[in-house]
């Protein structure tokens, strides 16, 4: 025998038995089906907001369509109606002049409650309420209809649960994929800053944060500074690097000392970046402008990601440190010759390409051998350090100094003509002359002095070895004339003895492959680091 009730349930089940992208899609389908089955004028779905004791309207469906709507009903205002709804799962409102039925939608599910960072499993039952209205013909709901509607309500509840689980899974999968992609990009990025930019932009975009900020500790882990941020438009801001304010230091302490940093009500989270006991820095994510709560699942994903990020940052820093050690002379902290050669080739290429000038200064400390012999190598090293400190502090960001070997140093001055180079040489000469050797036995203070030779592109040469050679010859003239001064090749060219001009200087003879060509593409990685002996 044909059972109409079972058939209706089966049909309804078939209608809802599909994969819905989200709750809205499912409700649209379910409410329309209910409307047609029971010839309703309107059907509504309310969310049950247990914490606020409010039924919050989400969607209304009428004859032709469904749409999102807003309306809040406090359950405190309707105690009788509510009691009936809770006890029987169904209630007919008595205040209306037409038939209207409320049906409770509930499910059993494990859930989480997030208070003070604690996660507790609880069971949340009530999820929503259906309101069905017949105001045109005012046909009352029969007991059979009410029974059937309750059964269909259970079907909706079952599908709502599945959809929510599917949606959460999809969301998690999307996030994991995004984080994986970002980690891969980050891990393969050679330059730390580029990698960090990519990662912050990606996290902000995928997780929909208003802002993301990164703070990093210094290499000793004693101070922390803001380094990078991404704002709501996705623009990366390179922070000033200012240290944290006092009140922020308190937050920092909390971030590192507390294992639970998630607060459900907050739209800001702080994530420490740490490796065992090493503090690498921390990340802040906020939704202060949009006021969207940051979900617990997002927090967990980011927390796992933060550990990976801390490790990668630490590795990248180590890599940078190794690079720094190989590029810089340990005693003077000046770049070594290999590094200088690369930069020199690049700058010379640029000067040729854009018609710019470039100057080169070769210098050495006067009577350095005697200083070593008289005061010992310790004082000799001290003098080298003092001179290089002056050099580092007296130059522009774009200038590249280098310890060429022994007490000889070279400075490349991009976009600098001979006159401008003379200003710099004079400045160095004066400042270095202010250095006195720390020898208490001497009655008279013993001042340091340097001799410098300058050559300029394009006037004195077109290649790196020509420029080195000319600067070297100018230095020779200065030494011949009593040291403690500087000379530009063009101005002293006639004083350079013919035999010096003819014979290739050791510097030129031993010139590294890199300096033979001005084009960076022709650089040889096997350039010599052997110090140059000037005549």
């Amino acid at each position, binding site marked *: 025998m044909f059972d109409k009730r079972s058939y209706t349930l089966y049909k309804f089940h078939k209608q809802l038995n599909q994969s819905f992208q989200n709750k809205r899609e499912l409700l649209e389908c379910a409410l329309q089906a209910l409307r047609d089955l029971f010839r309703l004028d309107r059907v509504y779905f309310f969310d049950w907001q247990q914490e606020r004791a409010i039924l919050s309207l989400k969607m209304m469906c009428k004859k032709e369509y469904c749409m999102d709507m807003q309306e809040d*009903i406090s359950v405190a205002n309707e105690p009788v109606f509510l009691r009936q709804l809770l006890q029987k799962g169904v209630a007919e409102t008595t205040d209306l002049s037409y038939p209207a039925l409320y049906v409770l939608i509930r499910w059993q599910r494990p859930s989480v409650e997030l208070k003070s960072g604690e996660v507790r499993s609880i069971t949340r039952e009530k999820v929503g309420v259906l309101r069905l209205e017949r105001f045109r013909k005012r046909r009352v709901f029969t007991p059979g209809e009410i029974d059937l509607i309750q059964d269909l309500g259970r079907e909706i509840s079952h599908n709502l649960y599945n959809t929510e689980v599917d949606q959460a899974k999809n969301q998690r999968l999307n996030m994991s994929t995004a984080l994986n992609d970002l980690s891969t990009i980050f891990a393969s990025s050679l330059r730390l800053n580029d990698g960090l930019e990519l990662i912050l932009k990606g996290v902000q975009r995928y997780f929909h944060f208003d*802002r993301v900020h990164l703070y990093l500790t210094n290499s000793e882990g004693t101070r922390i500074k803001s380094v990078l941020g991404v704002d709501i*438009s996705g623009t990366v801001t390179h922070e000033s690097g200012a240290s944290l304010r006092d009140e922020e230091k308190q937050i920092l302490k909390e971030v590192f000392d507390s294992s639970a940093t998630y607060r459900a009500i907050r739209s800001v989270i702080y994530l420490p970046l740490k490796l065992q006991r090493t503090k690498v820095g921390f990340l802040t994510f906020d939704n202060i*402008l*949009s006021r969207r709560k940051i979900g617990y699942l997002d927090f967990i994903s980011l927390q796992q990601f933060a550990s990976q990020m801390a490790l990668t940052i630490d590795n990248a820093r180590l890599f940078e440190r190794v690079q720094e050690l190989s590029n810089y002379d340990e005693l003077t902290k000046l770049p070594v010759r290999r590094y200088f050669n690369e930069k020199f080739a690049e700058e010379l290429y640029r000067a040729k390409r854009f018609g710019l000038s470039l100057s080169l200064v070769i210098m050495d400390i006067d009577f350095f051998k005697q200083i070593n012999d008289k005061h010992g190598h310790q004082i000799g090293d001290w003098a080298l350090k003092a001179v290089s400190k002056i050099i580092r502090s007296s130059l522009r960001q774009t200038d590249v100094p280098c310890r060429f070997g022994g007490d000889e140093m070279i400075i490349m001055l991009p976009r600098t003509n001979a006159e401008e180079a003379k200003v710099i040489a004079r400045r160095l000469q004066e400042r270095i002359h202010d250095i006195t050797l720390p020898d208490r036995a001497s009655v008279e203070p013993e001042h340091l002095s340097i001799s410098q030779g300058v050559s300029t592109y394009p006037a004195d040469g077109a290649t790196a070895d020509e420029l080195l050679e000319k600067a070297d010859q100018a230095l020779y003239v200065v030494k011949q004339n009593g040291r403690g001064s500087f000379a530009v090749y063009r101005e002293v060219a006639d004083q350079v003895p013919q035999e010096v001009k003819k014979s290739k200087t050791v510097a030129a003879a031993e010139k590294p492959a890199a300096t033979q060509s001005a084009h960076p593409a022709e650089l040889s990685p096997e350039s010599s680091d052997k110090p140059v002996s000037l005549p």
Partner: protein
Amino acid sequence: MILWAMPDSGARTMEDYAALVALFRKENPSIDLSVRVLTRNVLWRRIFTLKDPFHEEMPDLIQIPHYWTALIVKAGIAENLSQLDPGLTLTDSLPQLKENCYQPGTKDIYSYPWWFDLSALHYRVDHLKMVSSSPDEELKTWSGLLSVCAKLREKFKNVPGYYPMQNSDWRGSLSMRSALPCMWSRELNFFTEDRAATLVGSKEFKEALHDYITLALKEYMPILRERGSLGTIVSGKASMMLARKQGISTFSAHRGMRVRTVPVPMAGDKPAAYLSGMNLFINTFSQHKKDALQFIKFCARKDIQMRYATMIEAFPAFEYAFEPFLAQSPRLQTYKHILPSAQILPNMVIMGTVMEILKRVLAMCAAQIVEHRFTQALLDKELDMTAKEIEFLLSIYKG
């Protein structure tokens, strides 16, 4: 092309949009336009995720409240309309609406006016006659309004489910939009003149909010009730309503029932009303920017402005349509007097957030009132915290 719009006409929203789309399609048969209706809450959330690579649907055009323009510019989701069409101007727009179309500090148009509405007080003449010899005079001030409410409550005490005021808020809760005139009437604003600090924590602001909340506290206006179960002006179970123009056409549909519209009663010394403008902007990620611009221009046309404003019971946003629109009915003349005192919310990045925060405060008050645990001290404390939150926002976003 997809338009994200808000439910402007209540229950008739979809019908009205269908009619507008039909008009547009008639003139532009090659442009396919679909409308998705999102509530303001949903829209607020969605505009922050527009750049999401997993976004299910990419809208081309989006309707927003006037005070969100600075935000959408800051978020980088709005197309610069001045660049898209250098000929586009706001010359004919109502003067009050212009400032909220630009990127703050520039004359670059990022959102274009569509329509606007004005708040006013509507009352049933027959009901008010029973309790007042000169209702217009008495309803000039907020204290007069409360006194009329008290008299009406007494007069209709035997009518079950009667409230002197009908709640015009869509959610049936307390609404910041209705509270705004109480603030402005005291010559108070959300921010100091230089917009460097907020006045939300000030004594005057607290008093202004209290004026409005009193309507619910004294049960002159229902809150958080099942909408269908409540009385309305038309059913005789309410006598007054503080509302925008929208929804009042039902009065005209009932013969013999006279409803008068007067300015919002003054809570302070100055008349004030809320001018709520609706704008359209083009999503910067849209693939149909030219079509979207075509729709914006279509909506700004005089005949469409008049027709759509009539359809959704609002006002045209352009002067060339506004004057002829008012001339249609003597009832609308009242709004001519209300307009000069009407104010808009400032075009600031954080304004939308401030309104969201205050909505939360009022929702909390509403829940406390129905559970009989509201105290002014609780509200004051909440507003002090809100003020700190706003100051923090100001420090980050500089307005």
